[in-house]
Every structure is written in C-alpha cells, then in structure tokens.
C-alpha cells in the first residue's frame, strides 16, 4: 500500500530545452507584491490611457486574456498601440489576429507561442528578425501561468514531452523522484503585466467574469501589474452580496478601467454579440497586408476607445450587438 521514499540524493535531468524564458523568480515576485500591490480598499479606477501609461513599460512581458474577437481587453489593447509601446514579449496562448496587430504596430518583439494567426505581418517580422518566437503550446502556456499564479518556480506537466518545441523552450525532462518515470517540468510564468476584460468590477478591482475563459484568474494572480477593464463598474455592495461570483480579488488588481463595449468588434458573452462586419474587417486586414490601414482607421485617430465607438461604430450598431445577444442565463451573479 505504501511506498518507501527513495533514498536517492539526486534527480536526473534527462533532457532540457535551450530556449530563453522570462526569468523565474518567485521570491522576487513576492517582494514585488509586498511593495506594490495595494491591500487597502482604495479606489483604482482610471482611464485606459492612464492605466497603460502607468502600468505598461517598454520591454514588459504581457499577457492578455481571451483574444481580440472574444472578450478581449480591446480598449486597453488599442491603448498599447496608441502609446506606441515597444518590445513587448507576448504570452501567445489562444491569441488570434491580435499578435499581428501588435507586431505590425511595432509593439511586440517576442512571443511565447501557443498559437497565433499566421499572418503576413508576422511572417515579415520573423524574416526581418524583428520578432523572436519561443515554442510552447496553449495549455503549456496556461499551466506556466498557473505555476506563476501559485507562487511556484515550476510545474510538472503531462504534455509537451517529445516535441521539437520542447527543445526550443525552457522545459526540462526529469526523472520523477516519486515514481522514477520521466516527467516534463516547465518554468513558471509571472508576466510583468496582464490585461483582462471582465463583465463587472468594482472600483477596487474585485472583478466578475461570466462564462468560459482561458486563464483570466491565473493571469491576474501571476502578473506583477494587472489592468482590469470592465463592461460595468458595480458597487462594492453588489460584490459583497454574492462573494462566490468574484473571479479576481481586488488586491491583485492595479487599475480598473470602465470600458463598456470594451471587446468591440468581438463579443462579450451574455452582454453583446460580435459585430460580424468588424470581425471580418480585422481578419481581412490581418490576413492581407492591411494592418496599418486598419490601425489608421480604428485605433490611431481616436483619443479613446469610447471616441472610436461613438464616431466609427455608432450607437445603432452597438444597440444591435446588444440586442443580438439573446442568451443571458449564466451571465449574471
């Protein structure tokens, strides 16, 4: 029934990848939390502009949750481009058109690849050496973030072994000291900054996300700086009414951005459907060579995302998107 612990004094490293990876430093992360994360219930509501200005630095490792078409934090995402952030390193799990937008805009120079939409702008950047890719996979990336969200230096995983990606990553294959079997471990990921779009948040950052997601909660806990945009700013009394509905606790959040229709042209499930026209437009732009034109039409001319919604989309279309979302059950607390 029981196993005696092995008396071996060593664990063998059977194989290891040679890829660079974002530094693993759980104690450093803890010190950052202690110094910079506000455990007081003090308001942290601000504009997307202020949030990006204060909390996103050139060279940061960035994770954004979901993608440009599905509950993406698009208001904050546009602001990254507007403020011309440089050399971002992207956690590329479940990304889609967004990587091409960031790369073509000159914002991103590295990506940890789970998946991105292979687009001319990305290919060009790769060929010209303006973009470096490190190889993982979707779940390996979200598990790396999970490890970061648990305050650990690494996590064992049951996939990724045997792939070529492994050899170009930070993973190691070790001999499990409990079973003797080979097992892959991957370095924890603590991004410098996470941007996340929630359905609701209070002014302190207590946030509710309804429906499915990729790694929203993990990203919020794993990241040094966390910007949450929200469809609705709700009263803290409403948060306290149903604490089981809180996805992200306030102390992990640095900035709250009020951002109705903040996932346009994508959907915010339960609140509004996507704008199919807007979706096709960004898709066509990315798959063609239309990113600069797209950004010149949808991002750069506007002071704010709200201005874009008002001037470029219009209330009628927004109303239609909201009316189009007939499935509401499960998207409230």
């Amino acid at each position, binding site marked *: 029934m029981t196993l005696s612990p092995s008396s071996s004094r060593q664990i063998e490293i059977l194989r290891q990848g040679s890829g660079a990876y974002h530094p693993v430093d759980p104690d450093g992360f803890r010190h950052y939390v202690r110094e910079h994360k506000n455990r007081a219930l003090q308001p942290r509501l601000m504009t997307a502009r202020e949030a990006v200005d204060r909390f996103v630095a050139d060279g940061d490792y960035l994770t954004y949750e979901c993608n440009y078409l599905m*509950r993406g934090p698009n208001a904050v995402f546009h602001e990254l481009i507007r403020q011309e952030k440089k050399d971002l390193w992207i956690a590329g799990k479940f990304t889609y058109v967004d990587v091409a937008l960031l790369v073509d805009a000159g914002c991103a120079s590295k990506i940890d690849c789970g998946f991105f939409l292979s687009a001319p702008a990305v290919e060009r950047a790769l060929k010209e050496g303006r973009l470096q890719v490190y190889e993982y*996979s979707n*779940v*390996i990336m979200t598990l790396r973030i999970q490890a970061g969200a648990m305050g650990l230096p690494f996590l064992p995983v049951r996939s990724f072994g*045997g792939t070529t990606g492994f050899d170009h990553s930070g993973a190691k294959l070790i001999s499990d000291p409990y079973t003797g079997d080979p097992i892959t471990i991957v370095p924890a990921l603590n991004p410098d900054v996470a941007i996340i779009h929630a359905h609701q948040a209070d002014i302190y950052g207590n946030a509710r996300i309804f429906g*499915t997601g990729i790694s929203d909660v993990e990203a919020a806990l794993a990241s040094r700086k966390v910007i949450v945009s929200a469809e609705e700013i709700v009263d803290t009394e409403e948060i306290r009414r149903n604490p089981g509905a809180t996805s992200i606790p306030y102390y992990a959040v640095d900035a709250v951005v009020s951002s109705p229709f903040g996932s346009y042209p994508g959907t915010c499930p339960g609140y509004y459907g996507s704008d*199919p026209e807007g*979706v096709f437009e960004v898709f066509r732009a990315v798959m063609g060579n239309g990113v600069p034109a797209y950004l010149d039409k949808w991002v750069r001319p506007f002071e704010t995302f709200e201005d874009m919604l008002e001037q470029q989309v219009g209330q009628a279309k927004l109303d239609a998107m909201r009316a189009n979302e007939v499935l509401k059950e499960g998207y409230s607390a």
Partner: protein
Amino acid sequence: MTRAEAFSDREVAMCQVARLVENGRTYWAAGGGTPLYSVLLGKKLYAPDAQYITEDGVIAPEPMLPFEPMMTMVASRAVYRALAWGTMNSAGIHAQLGYMDYGVLNTLQVDQHGNINSTFLGEYGGSGRRFGGPGGADTIAACCWRTILITDQERRKFVREVDFISSPGFLDGTPGARERAGLPEGTGPWRVVTPWAMYDYAPRRLRLIARVPWVTVDEILAECEWKPLVADEVQVLEPPTEEELQLLRTELDVRGQTTDAAGSWITWDGEKYIRA
C-alpha cells in the same frame, strides 16, 4: 440514409470522422473548425451520448447552431447549455487526468509515426514557412487516450518525418518512446482521416486501411511523399449521406471555414462518383 449526389472533399472527411464518434465517450475538439463540426455531426446523427469538451473548458454543451462566424469558442452560442464552464487549464487538467477518450485535431503535416507539424515547414530557424503553432493540439495529442487527425490527402502533408514535431505522435516509433518523453502511458494516435482515405497505426506506424470509392489505393499513395503501410484489405468507405450533408450545411459548417479550403467537389454521374 440517402447517398448524396454532390459534396466537397472536406465534407467527406468530416462525415467519416463523424461515423467514428461513439456514445459514452468524451471528445476534446481542437479549436472550432472541422474537428468540432465532425464531432457534433457524429453526436447529432449517430451517438447522442457522445460528449465533447472545448479548449476553453466547456463540458458537454448543446450549442445554439449555427455558430456565428469565427465564434466557436467563448461566445454564448458556442458554450450554450453546457454541463459546466471552465477554462483552458481545466480542460488541460481533465485531459491530464485521463478523462478525455478522444482528441480530434486537424494538422498541416503528419509523418509515418503520427507526429504533427503545425509550426514550421523547412528547417526550423532557417528559410521556410512559419505557421501558427500547436495551439491546444499538443496537449490533446499527448493526453487524450486516442487521437483522430483530419488532414488533406496531399504529398507534402504525408511525410517520412515532420520538419517540426508540434504535437506528439509515436515520436521515433520505438516502443515506449512517448513514455520515455514523459507522456502518459498508453496514449497515442489512432486514426488519420483525409477526404480520400482512412489510416490506422500497425502499431505505431501509419497504415492505409480504407479509401473512398472514387479513388484508388495507388492514387492515394501517389499523394503521400512517404508511403504508409497498406492493410491487406483496404476497405471502401461509404460516401456522405444527404442527412449528413444537410446537417453540416445548414447547422455546422454553414459558411465554410475561412482559413480551411473545401477542396474539390465530388458528384454522382448516375453510375459512379466523379472528382472534379
């Protein structure tokens, strides 16, 4: 069941996969294209108690069809009436635990041992073409008990060794290679389905086991850069039925996948099927 009179290559492949779907089994569908449509087709026509899970952790949804364009995950219609909502990590973790019977994937390139490339054609780091990476396929291929690959029957897609293993098959094909790489014991590729053919592994090496009526074994092998084994008896697959196509076209693959060509068109000339 009514034999259909006109359909596309891609429709053929999806119908073949649909017929593999079993009641009481779980299917982890990669992304939201042909793998998802195939599983849903099978569930709706043949195996109502087959259950599927998506990369965003949705367990056993009854989606409101058709999907909105490109909205096959996260969106409310896609996750509708699920038994549980989750995350990418919950899906991955349930797969690590052995809860996923089948993984269904499409792939750019597959080799004799079922390894999948969706990352790079050519010498990695050199010239060649970069693709989007494994996405969820790595974990699906590693952790589901059996995987079903969907791909096109093209020479460049069936190779001796993939240029880059994005998602693991039987690796070098030796017994225990997956386990030595840290992957869960007893898992691996199970079927490859193309618009022309179906393959299994005998063992750990790709083997042609069935063909559609309108192509010969030689035609199939001509579209394999590296020749697979061939079963002693190559079965003939049934063509799509009108019922399958009706459902595919009206509820599932309504607009076709933006990034996924439909392939050639096959028609019934009164006596036989002809490929355009």
